[in-house]
């Protein structure tokens, strides 16, 4: 029995042959020189310096021409479960009314899963002066601070927005990152705390420590927003997150979270998509945002979904509407912002999203829709409620801390 000589094998398929040829030193010197020349030409072309940071001062900002009058359109990027929706349909009654009233065609998209990933996507485009095909984006305070600092959003004309001027809640009229609200208008505020399914957990969860028990092992999701997750943990470790604290306190919270992931208690660290894990049953409890849990209860028709502020305290934040620097529909955007500051409209939205409503007078309107909701501390919290429950805003980080802490969070918690 003679084995077939190996030479008689069929030749390689052309694809494989190309791979083999390319990888076994088949390059001639000339070809190599050619590639080198092309590469250096390319280097000269594209290795131009990255964009410079803004020099500061309002004079530096050049606004695009506003074509709102001729183009009655508006594109709005927002978070999941953040606008009133008509039953299982994906139509919003308030938005429909706005479109009818003004004739502006609004495209609403739930683009934002997480501040970081959204801004990382659109930031470079905005810096390069390119359109991101959105006229409003909605980002959390600290990210809004970054956008304003980088001069990547347009100044707003408050004079065109009478509802905003008269109905924006007093404490929100002057915020540290945007004095006088020249660039951003609050969309909703909210709390981070513990969200869980009472039936599936089988008991009440009152403090953060209640999450770390064997029966909940591997069934807990936490937010990828470190100001909320680390904030809550820091509070449980006795830190006042709105006052002065440093890297040591932050790191000790991260070590704690890292340990809980290592031990298998925390299953996933996620953006707004954590709601999928709660819906699919992969997780039954976690560090979540207040309104989402009410929407979840409504969507799944399961009243067992519960949101609670842990005994050690919760976080308070706001999301803010801004007009990206390259948008050409600023007037349309301002009309929409003003529309949502009509107390009756705001109450309608709040009744669905269950987030803290930033509109003065909405509570009175809510009485007409649902008197129970008008009493809800998750929508209309009193100053006493916030103080009693130790609800605090995460302190503003300076630029260096911003990078340092995000780096720590990324290496220790997100991508290890």
């Amino acid at each position, binding site marked *: *029995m*003679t*084995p*077939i000589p*190996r030479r008689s*094998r*069929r*030749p*390689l*398929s*052309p*694809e*494989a*042959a190309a*791979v*083999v*040829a390319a*990888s*076994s030193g088949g390059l001639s010197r000339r070809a190599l020189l050619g590639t080198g020349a*092309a*590469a250096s030409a*390319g*280097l000269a*072309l*594209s*290795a131009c*310096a*990255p*964009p*410079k*940071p803004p020099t500061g001062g309002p004079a530096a900002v050049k606004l695009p021409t506003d074509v709102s009058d001729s183009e009655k359109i508006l594109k709005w990027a927002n978070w999941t479960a953040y606008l009133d929706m008509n039953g299982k349909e994906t139509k919003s009654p308030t938005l429909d009314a706005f479109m009818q009233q003004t004739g502006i065609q609004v495209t609403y998209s739930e683009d934002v899963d*997480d501040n*970081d*990933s959204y801004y*990382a*996507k659109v930031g470079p485009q905005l810096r390069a002066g390119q359109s991101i095909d959105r006229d409003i984006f909605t980002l959390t305070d600290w990210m809004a601070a*970054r956008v304003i600092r*980088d001069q990547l959003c347009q100044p707003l004309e408050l004079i065109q927005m009478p509802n905003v001027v008269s109905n924006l809640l007093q404490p929100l009229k002057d915020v540290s990152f945007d004095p006088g609200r020249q660039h951003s208008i609050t969309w909703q505020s909210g709390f981070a705390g513990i969200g869980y399914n009472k039936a599936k957990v089988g008991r009440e969860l009152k403090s953060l420590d209640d999450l770390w028990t064997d029966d909940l092992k*591997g*069934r807990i999701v936490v937010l*990828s927003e470190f100001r909320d997750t680390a904030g809550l943990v820091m509070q449980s470790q006795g830190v006042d997150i709105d006052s002065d604290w440093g890297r040591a306190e932050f790191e000790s919270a991260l070590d704690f979270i890292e340990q809980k*992931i*290592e031990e298998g208690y925390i*299953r*996933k*660290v996620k953006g707004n998509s954590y709601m999928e894990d709660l819906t*699919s*049953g*992969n997780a039954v409890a976690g560090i979540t945002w207040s309104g989402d849990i009410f929407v979840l209860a409504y969507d799944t028709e399961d009243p067992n979904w519960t949101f609670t502020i842990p005994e050690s305290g919760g976080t308070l934040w706001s999301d803010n509407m801004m007009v990206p620097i390259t948008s050409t529909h600023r007037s349309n955007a301002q009309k929409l912002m003003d529309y949502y500051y009509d107390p009756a409209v705001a109450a309608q939205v709040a009744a669905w999203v269950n987030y803290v409503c930033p509109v003065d007078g909405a509570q009175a309107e809510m009485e007409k829709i649902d008197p129970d909701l008008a009493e809800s501390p998750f929508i209309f919290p009193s100053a006493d409620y916030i103080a009693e429950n130790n609800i605090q805003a995460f302190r503003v980080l300076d*630029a*260096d801390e*911003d*990078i340092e802490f*995000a*780096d720590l*969070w*990324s290496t220790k918690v*997100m*991508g*290890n």
Partner: protein
Amino acid sequence: MSALAHVAGDPDVTPAAPAPEATKRSWTAYLLLLPGALWLGVFFVLPLVQLAAVSLQSRYPGFPGYYYRDVNFENYAAALTDYAPHFARSFLYAGMATFLAFVVAYPLAYAMAFKAGKWRNLMMICVVAPFFTSFILRTFAWSQILADEGWVAGTLNFLHLLPGGNIINTPLAVIAGLTYNFLPFMVLPIYASLERADPRVIEAGGDLYANGFTTFRTVTLPMSMPGVLAGTLLTFIPAAGDFVNMELLGPQRGKMVGNVINDQFLAVPGGYPVAAALSFTLMAAILVMVFLYVRRFGTEELV
């Protein structure tokens, strides 16, 4: 697939090349190459150069998310020291997925080439059909199917066959996802090379008193090696850089290098240089591995 058979060409035909026409012809060839070369230049070489430039930039002090031009090799040092385990994990998972895909794909390709008969086209469609839906959607569908309260995990838990209690968010789910997603890239090349194999040569093995296994080992398998080589490369290379399967099916701890790159690009203000350095290192590492692999298993085909 019959098209591939034609590509192999007929070695008996010697090209007639009269001297005067030679130069003219070569110019046409270059002209025809131009679109491809341009495409490669604009969409491969330029971005690569840009990536190399970014991988050497430094963070602009005081301005998160801004950079200045620099020759900062520390990015590479950080990429290699901080994320060595992630590289190892990527290559391990990709290697396991490639092996599993091979184990599943070979019998499938063999059956398609030699045994399928009138079912061949249907089998081919079944292999290719998943491509009609987006990669992300299919992976996302798996995350729903394998969810804790889905029927798969539910049944296994009911039978006490699932020690950890869940399938999803485990390394196993990631490797299974990678295997599933890249399986067609393994099946098709192996099928192509088996389909071209001359059945008479395999019969000859039997005529020479070799048993089925020996014939397979000494005749069929060697004939299909070019397809196996192409298939393993087409599976391993994208699997090593993949981050979707880990993101949607994987655990929180023990990420792959693709996830780190994604995270550095998207979540860390000022993470671009390290992300670019990681991408470059991954590319270089894969290139070296492929080079060694092809050297070991493929060079005989050249001469």
